[in-house]
């Protein structure tokens, strides 16, 4: 049951055909895990908080730096030197005080990842490195938690939604490493990709539309072009190969 204030706050999205109060209640019941509150995580967390997701756990062990501020829109100049999860939690609470924000300033590792994601309905991949993405992909597969992938570089980005047992996972399509380190990026790129990830999350929670499963969406901002590539489960995948097909 939504309060009078909630009905007003979410009135424009409740108006969407197929959304309604029932859809809003689904968002309110949801527990979302966001790995990273940098460029992508700032955007996904902002829109999911604004949309009224009930619980958002943000996990990031970094502190805010000046060079983050061209794209990491949850952080401000006065936050430099503070934990990212703290400045993010403060902004998210000011956007929507009804959302429960759980700020965890820990590095995600093999030792703690299982405990960190337990009890959450889905995982948003807003990381900046492939090893942690693989760690998240693996735990998402092992615990059969939907996983929402996004990545950016320069004016380019990509997104894919992984439903364990139904769609290709990251390891079904990615061979291995990428060049790590400081990557070039303009803030609008994680803006675009983070919004796509948040859209996918909302669709998943509502049970609406067609998810980006078995499709890799590649965004080329310089040519303003979106391209979709079909991907498929790899029966020999190191992460999901043993998972029974649920289609």
């Amino acid at each position, binding site marked *: 049951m939504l309060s009078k204030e909630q009905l007003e706050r979410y009135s424009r999205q409740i108006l969407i055909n197929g959304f309604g109060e029932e859809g809003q209640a689904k968002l309110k019941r949801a527990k979302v895990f966001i790995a*990273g509150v*940098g*460029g*992508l*995580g700032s955007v996904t967390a902002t829109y999911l908080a604004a949309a009224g997701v009930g619980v958002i756990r943000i996990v990031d062990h970094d502190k805010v730096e000046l060079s983050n501020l061209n794209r990491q829109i949850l952080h401000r100049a006065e936050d430099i030197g503070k934990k990212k999860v703290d400045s993010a939690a403060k902004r998210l609470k000011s956007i929507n005080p009804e959302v429960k924000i759980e700020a965890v300033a820990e590095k995600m590792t093999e030792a703690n990842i299982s405990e960190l994601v337990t009890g959450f309905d889905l995982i948003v991949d*807003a*990381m*900046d*490195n*492939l090893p942690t*993405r693989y760690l998240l992909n693996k735990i998402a597969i092992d615990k059969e938690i939907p996983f929402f992938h*996004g*990545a*950016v*570089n320069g004016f*380019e*980005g*990509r997104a894919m939604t992984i439903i364990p047992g139904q769609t*290709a996972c990251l390891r*079904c*399509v*990615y*061979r*291995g*490493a*990428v*060049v*790590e380190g400081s*990557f070039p*990026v303009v803030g609008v790129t*994680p803006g675009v990709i983070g919004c796509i990830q948040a859209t996918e999350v909302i669709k998943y929670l509502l049970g609406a539309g067609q998810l980006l499963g078995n499709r*890799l969406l*590649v965004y*080329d901002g*310089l040519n303003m072009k979106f*391209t*979709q*590539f*079909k*991907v*498929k489960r*790899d029966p*020999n995948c190191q992460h999901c190969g043993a998972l029974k097909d649920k289609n």
Partner: protein
Amino acid sequence: MSVKIKLHRSLAKLADGQAVVEVNGNTVGRCLEQMSARFPKLKKRLFEKDGALSRILEIYVNGESIYPDELATVVKDGDELDTVVRISGG
């Protein structure tokens, strides 16, 4: 026999700025080898030292993933290959 290879921006720079290169190999591997013979600067970006496909490159044929056996994948006249460089920033 003609196969079009669409080049990622970073690769096109190494192919005299060409966004699309036409080749006539019968496998993805042969197509990429032909292209790198024509544009030698591409070789290091397409292949690992042992001849395997670069670990940061993805190849799609007619819009579909051919992972994990990219180089051995057979292609036919009219096929289009996309070369996409993997990214991981957030």
